[in-house]
């Protein structure tokens, strides 16, 4: 039973991070390699708001979430917008540079030491006993719940809301979408904002569960194969990709060798690239275009 819980928690982490990669790629065809750094920035923003709004954890969390959304949108407006019309590779390299810059800034502002936003917020993280003798921490349970809610909300947003339909249109054919009067820059800024928001939620919940260090950047990168396995332009794919990668990783840790956990996501990715290069739910056309 504990094995199953471990798989679900890890899959939820990967899925929540991976949807940020998918949102931006789906709309603008840009791989955001600063996603891990933006995720970590979200956690640091929570740390900052926690010390600002002492004794009001919900306010601190809400403000941190709004700030994360704004950061994502601002990154697009002040940086990635300049890359519009340039080669996709240039945009990807820009995200790498952004990541390096963010890492340096975060060390200067918040130092390199391990931080505990949960302590600053005054929230506790007791373990919850589950049937079958399994246990899960409160924050890990919240993370699973948050993943389900966010994916549900994103599906509804993209399917039923006006802005969601515009976002899909911009992703499918930007030229036609622009000719129909859709403001592409607003759509892209929204995609960056939502991507940073979902990544930040993942970062916040991970840091509330086990603390915040510079290694969070690497966790962001580790979720990347989950998005690729599922198909970079598919949210459903990100969910299944995360589940497959997490199941393979936890099973190999448990039954074979814990050392394999580091390479498993990439092994799964290689297998997928050989069998179905565009991912489980990705569209073949998009890959051909790349």
């Amino acid at each position, binding site marked *: 039973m504990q094995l199953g819980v*471990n798989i679900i928690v890890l899959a939820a982490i990967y899925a929540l991070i991976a949807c940020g990669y998918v949102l931006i790629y789906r709309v603008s065809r840009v791989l955001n390699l600063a996603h891990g750094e933006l995720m970590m920035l979200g956690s640091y923003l929570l740390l900052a708001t926690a010390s600002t709004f002492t004794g009001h954890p919900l306010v601190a969390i809400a403000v941190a979430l709004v700030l994360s959304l704004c950061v994502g949108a601002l990154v697009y407006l002040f940086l990635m917008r300049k890359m519009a019309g340039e080669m996709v590779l240039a945009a990807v390299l820009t995200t790498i540079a952004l990541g390096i810059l963010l890492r340096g800034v975060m*060390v200067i502002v918040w130092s*390199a030491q391990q931080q505990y936003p949960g302590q600053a917020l005054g929230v506790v993280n007791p373990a919850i006993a589950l049937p079958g003798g399994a246990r899960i921490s409160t924050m890990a349970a919240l993370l699973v719940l948050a993943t389900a809610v966010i994916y549900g909300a994103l599906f509804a947003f993209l399917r039923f809301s006006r802005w969601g339909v515009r976002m899909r249109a911009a992703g499918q054919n930007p030229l036609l979408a622009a000719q129909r009067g859709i403001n592409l820059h607003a759509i892209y800024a929204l995609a960056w904002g939502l991507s940073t928001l979902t990544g930040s939620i993942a970062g916040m919940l991970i840091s509330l569960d086990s603390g915040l260090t*510079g*290694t969070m950047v690497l966790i962001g990168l580790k979720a990347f194969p989950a998005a690729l396995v599922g198909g970079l332009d598919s949210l459903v794919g990100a969910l299944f990709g995360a589940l497959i990668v997490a199941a393979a990783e*936890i099973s190999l*840790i448990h039954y074979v060798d814990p050392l394999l956990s580091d390479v498993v996501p990439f092994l799964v990715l290689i297998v997928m690239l050989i069998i179905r290069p565009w991912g489980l739910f990705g569209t073949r056309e998009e890959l051909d275009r790349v």
Partner: protein
Amino acid sequence: MRASKIAFAALAATLAVPAVAQDAYVVGITSALTGPPASTYAPAMEALQIYIDRVNAAGGVNGKQIKLVILDDSAEPSKATANVKRLLTQDNAVLLVNASLSSTYAPIVGEAKRAEVPLLFASGVCPREVYPPADPLQFCTTAYAATYDSRGALTFVKETSKQPVQLGLAAMAIPLSRAEMDFAEQQAPSFGMRVVDKEVIPPPTPDYTPFATKLKEAGANWVFSWAPWVTQVRTLEALRRLDWAGDYITWAHLESEGELVRLKDGKLFVIGANSLFQDNLPIHREIADAAKKANAKYPAQQMTEGWIAGMVIEAALKGAGWPTTPAKVQASMQNLKVDLKGLRGGQIEWTKDNHFRTKQYYRVYRWDSAKSVIVVAKDWYSYDVK
């Protein structure tokens, strides 16, 4: 905001005009001030800067100021190599200091040897070459010591445990940590312990529960971890979330004092070579006052390693006299005794053949739930370094 100053100084130093004439002792430092492992090194460098600033304010050494040139290498070997080349050719450093990951050691050692400049490892793990018979150019002040630490920890576990020990081991997937846990695995039977599981955990692990699950299911009643703090503490916390009630012993990194207070876990033992600030020795108060005065970014409790490095550098330069050369500094370091005023169990003593220390002292601390304070679980005990 001293860490910010160090970061900006590192940037400014990169752009600075090369020094031509030296009127100060130049100590060149390459350190992981940024990057994932920075939490181990950045506090030590801030402490070193504070210590040297105090020395300079008091008139310097032999009437000359000490100039620290601190460059960030982000724990990347290529950056560290470039830093050292600059420190040697442009800054004319008479002493090099490495405070970074062990992966940066090999290229730095090569550069130091070519230039015949002594190299001090401060806050990073001591390389094999500083133990007897020591490499003439390499020295180390860092507290932790491969193999000795495992012996110290297993000795404590053996003395403390009232029942047969089923030992679990937790390492980070980096060479040094794995090698130390392999050594502990080999040594455990000679201490009458059975190793039931060994987990090697990759650094970018979002959830430690899968590894903790295996340690618990293997039946470990003691777990020993020698790894960067993040792996040590997250493994423990994951075990506790699984309702594991065993004892946990781990290395007392810079963060350990604050973490003992945060966790309030009576079955968590930290073994280290540095005394904790809860001892409240005069030297601890001196460091705390200096950190406060300097508006330090890191807590004083994390400054012991950097402070010790400062004391040793000051003593080495004093012995080298003025005007100095790298050879004079090296000669001074090969015959050095520094009283650490209680920061460790004994002094740092370097000889021609031993650039580590002649005795390695350990002390074990734990949280006392009844008194709500950190207490000494086992007082200083030592091993001869041969």
